[in-house]
């Protein structure tokens, strides 16, 4: 889909802050509120903007810290459908947050979120490894998130500039 410069600009701004007031957004791209709303609506309808979600630091919520694992999965591709069929079988599980087809030593990279290590381990041994096409899995648990989707956690927005300068 070919988008105009203003449309791309609106996406860029919303990608950083989806909750920006429509009025502010309109001013930033020098359009009227109505024009801007129409563009956002179009972007939503065409699924260019798929959804608006909050980026949560779950570590701060007691009892909800959770664990995230990245699993390298080797699979046997099937004639006709390649990797797509097995990928679909995997991504349909709600525990699975993302699935990517990779170049290199393994085929699929699967990101799982669970409440505990044992919950993730259970998913891997019962659901993932038992799939016919899956040859092997290697599970890596994430120990600490420093930066996620371009956002650095625990970053104080400290302004070190002096208050008034020429």
């Amino acid at each position: 889909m070919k988008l105009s410069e203003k449309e791309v600009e609106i996406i860029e701004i919303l990608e950083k802050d989806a909750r920006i007031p429509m009025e502010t957004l309109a001013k930033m791209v020098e359009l009227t509120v109505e024009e801007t709303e129409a563009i956002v609506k179009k972007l939503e309808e065409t699924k260019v903007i798929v959804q608006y979600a909050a980026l949560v630091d779950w570590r701060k919520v007691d009892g909800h810290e959770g664990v995230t694992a990245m699993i390298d999965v080797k699979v046997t591709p099937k004639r006709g459908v390649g990797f797509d069929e097995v990928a679909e079988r995997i991504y349909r599980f709600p525990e699975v947050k993302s699935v990517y087809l990779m170049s290199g030593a393994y085929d699929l990279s699967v990101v799982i979120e669970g409440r505990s290590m044992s919950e993730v381990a259970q998913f891997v041994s019962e659901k993932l490894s038992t799939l016919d096409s899956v040859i092997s899995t290697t599970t890596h648990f994430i120990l600490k998130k420093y930066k996620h989707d371009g956002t650095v956690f625990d970053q104080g927005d400290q302004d070190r500039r002096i208050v008034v300068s020429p």
Partner: protein
Amino acid sequence: MRQQTKKSYVSETVSRLKPSGIRRFFDLASGMEGVISLGVGEPDFVTSWNIREASILSLEQGYTSYTANAGLLELRQEIAAYLMRKFHVEYNPETEILVTVGASQALDLAMRAIINPGDEVIVVEPCFVAYEPLVALAGGTPVLVETHGDDHFKLRPEQIEQVITDRTKALIICSPNNPTGTVLQKEELEAIGRIVKKYDLLVVADEIYAELTYDGTYTSVAAVDGMWERTILISGFSKGFAMTGWRLGFAAAPNEILQAMLKIHQYAMMCAPTMAQYGALEALRNGGQDVEYMRKSYRRRRNYFVQSLNEIGLYCHMPGGAFYAFPSIQSTGLTSEQFAERLLFEEKVAVVPGNVFGASGEGYIRCSYASSLEQLQEAIKRMKRFLERL
């Protein structure tokens, strides 16, 4: 015990300089809590990591000695390539480019290199606070030309012609301008250039904000027909590359003038800081994308902020460059100083009164929009409340 002396040891020239009006506002604002400052004359971005990393690497590798007086040749070559690529002006990196400690030092060197005692230098107000003192310190006489808000602070060639005398040596032009954000267009520079040529003057072109223009194409003074040989082009890394604290700038000028500046520089400064020069090298080689990102971000904030100022009743023309809005506050009946002071005390928003940039800045305030969008939104809210109460 100290003896009281009646005699002042301070030179008369320095005694006569008036302290910067910005200083007073700095003192007022810096003690206060919860202030949103729109008074800052620098980017709100931290220098890109690749630039910082390159400088760290230079330290790790032990590049801690002096460089050539004019700066690392590699860096001068990159500056020459950059000036060619961006502004289509050609300078010989070996003889026509000098790396300085900020654009400020380049300005100082330019003044000292060209001024004979009593020479007049035309300063266009409102402008950066350092021009007038630097001319005076070099033994020259600043001659002020005022530009006005109703004319969007454009410099008209006939204004220059009116103040030219036998002693006029040079004209300082700053485009995009601090504090007004006004950018001089090619035709305007050509018209100014005709006067400059007619009276055989030099132009000291402060183009430190040249990376930050938002509409149309930018023309450097040195790129105007017949102006290269009469221009001292001054720029640096502070604004466009968000490197204010690195103190790194440069001057580009015809050989004769540049060598005169270099002569002073080698006695007064030796060379610009080596680690900063390595950072700048990386900035020019790989910093283009980051500059573009920052430029875009300023433009969006400019659009938001200037439209909002107009909406709350402070008339402001859309500035073409830099990161300053310079709205009129004349509708309030307050002076710039009264407005700024009351806004600071009553709503904790710091702006700079326009008159510190020259008498024709009276009736205006300078607001920097190099602040986060959240801060700008909050500042507008507070300013609106302030105006409604007046």
